[in-house]
């Protein structure tokens, strides 16, 4: 209870600012008479969202599809990122071979990769969107986890050596717990990237009940109020996914300074 009250007090300024910005937007659009296809008022976006929730552009079913693709891509990219991080940390000689390739893969523009993924995995298959999301998720997970696995206090390694602990024990008792905070940092970045990947994948084609398709369809019909409402839904999903990771992090690493709420001195 006290925790909840503390959270409200902590985020009150952000909430107030947010409400003020929305209010200013609404008032500005009305006062200046901005036309709807330039910038719709928040109230118009809300109405468009409600009108197209289940029917019309079917934003709710579309959001479920997009969320499914984003979560699938997040799972795939996270698994791959973790696997590579473990291999590289365990076999340091593989580092020089794998890391440059990973960096090169990360440098591929996602916009260029999306049509390729649609072509490879089927434009109508959710797998093609998941592949785009996974390719974005992979790198931050891999690079952060790798740092956590390898950036271990030398004296902690010496301590484990003094116990004649083997590599597996060191990984289990030292490297993995040490890597958890780094992994969660990567995962927080990855949630947003997974959504972006899914939407971009949809953008280049696929079944029409998907938020990326809603954006393409409504924009070409000049129904920007609907475009905006799709953007709002993507943002809300991103925030919820981020908060979910935050909650899991609190449970998983209650001992870490970032979770204990201590400021570095």
């Amino acid at each position, binding site marked *: 209870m006290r925790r909840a009250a503390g959270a409200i007090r902590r985020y009150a300024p952000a909430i107030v600012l947010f409400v003020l910005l929305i209010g200013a937007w609404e008032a500005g659009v009305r006062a200046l008479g901005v036309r709807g296809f330039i910038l719709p008022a928040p109230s118009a976006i809300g109405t468009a969202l409600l009108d197209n929730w289940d029917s019309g552009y079917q934003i709710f079913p579309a959001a479920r599809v997009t969320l499914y693709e984003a979560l699938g891509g997040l799972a795939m990219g996270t698994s791959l990122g973790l696997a590579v991080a473990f291999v590289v940390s365990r076999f340091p000689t593989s580092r020089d071979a794998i890391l440059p390739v990973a960096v090169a893969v990360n440098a591929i523009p996602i916009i260029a990769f999306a049509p390729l993924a649609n072509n490879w995995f089927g434009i109508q298959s959710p797998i093609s969107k998941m592949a785009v999301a996974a390719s974005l998720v992979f790198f931050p997970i891999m690079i952060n986890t790798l740092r956590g696995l390898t950036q271990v206090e030398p*004296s902690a390694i*010496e301590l484990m050596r*003094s116990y*004649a602990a083997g590599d597996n024990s060191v990984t289990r008792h030292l490297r993995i717990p040490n890597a958890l905070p780094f992994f969660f940092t990567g995962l927080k970045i990855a949630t947003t990237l997974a959504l972006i990947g899914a939407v971009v994948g949809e953008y280049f084609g696929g079944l029409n009940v998907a938020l990326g398709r809603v954006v393409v369809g409504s924009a070409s019909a000049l129904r920007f109020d609907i475009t905006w409402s799709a953007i709002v839904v993507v943002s809300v999903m991103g925030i919820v996914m981020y908060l979910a990771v935050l909650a899991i992090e609190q449970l998983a690493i209650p001992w870490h300074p970032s979770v204990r709420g201590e400021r570095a001195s």
Partner: protein
Amino acid sequence: MSEAQATAPVVQLRGVGKTFALGDDSTVALNDINLDIDRGEFVSLIGPSGCGKSTLLRTIGDLIEPSEGTVQVNAKTAKRARLDREYGMVFQAPVLFDWRTVEENVQLPLELFGQNRAARTQRAVEMLELVGLSDFARHHPYQLSGGMQQRVAIARALAFSPDLLLMDEPFGALDEMTRERMNSELLAIWERTGITVVFVTHSIPEAVFLSSRVAVMSARPGRITHLIEVDLERPRGLATRESPRYFELITTVREALRTGEGRADDMSTSTERTAAEGGIG
């Protein structure tokens, strides 16, 4: 333990040398170290920064391999002794795992050695009692002060009853008052367990107060220049720190350190005598 092991020195160093190669350069960290440490002794290694005292401690613990000479622990090679878990190690930083509670930290070596949960828990209770932290078993390390964290590290090092305790400036990061209290507590633990201790420090009073012998080292190359017997009565306590003999020995060690720096003009007869008395093992 075999008879040979019972009578052999716990630590036997013969002609130990260590050269670190840094690119084209090489640094002689240790040169021709000879030292025997008997069962139940408390030996301090003292010297200026960079004299190789921590390196020497690590060669005893098989964390660093010597370039020359032999290191034996309990009449075995240092590596065999490490694999047989013959020693516990305490570093300057406590090196506690924040994700484990205090008792789980103490249990870490026992867990690695495959002890069952009941035995582990029991042993952790005993060890925390030994270092006076029974009330903090369920705390996490970051909830403890520096001195308390270091006591947890000592409890962890003693948890599996090693023959030898290797300590690398364990109280170097503590304030003077905490350090003195930790010194007394360490001596009490040493007396109760009869464990052999090798203790690296750069504090002269600490070395004199704790040790049965002080090995004075000099830098470049690191070598033992003096071995000073500390004949202060035991048990040692506040009275020890105020006794004239304590101050005499502090002066002796200080002068030994100064002559070790190679300033011939500082060489006094008293240190020469002490070095002869100490006798390099």
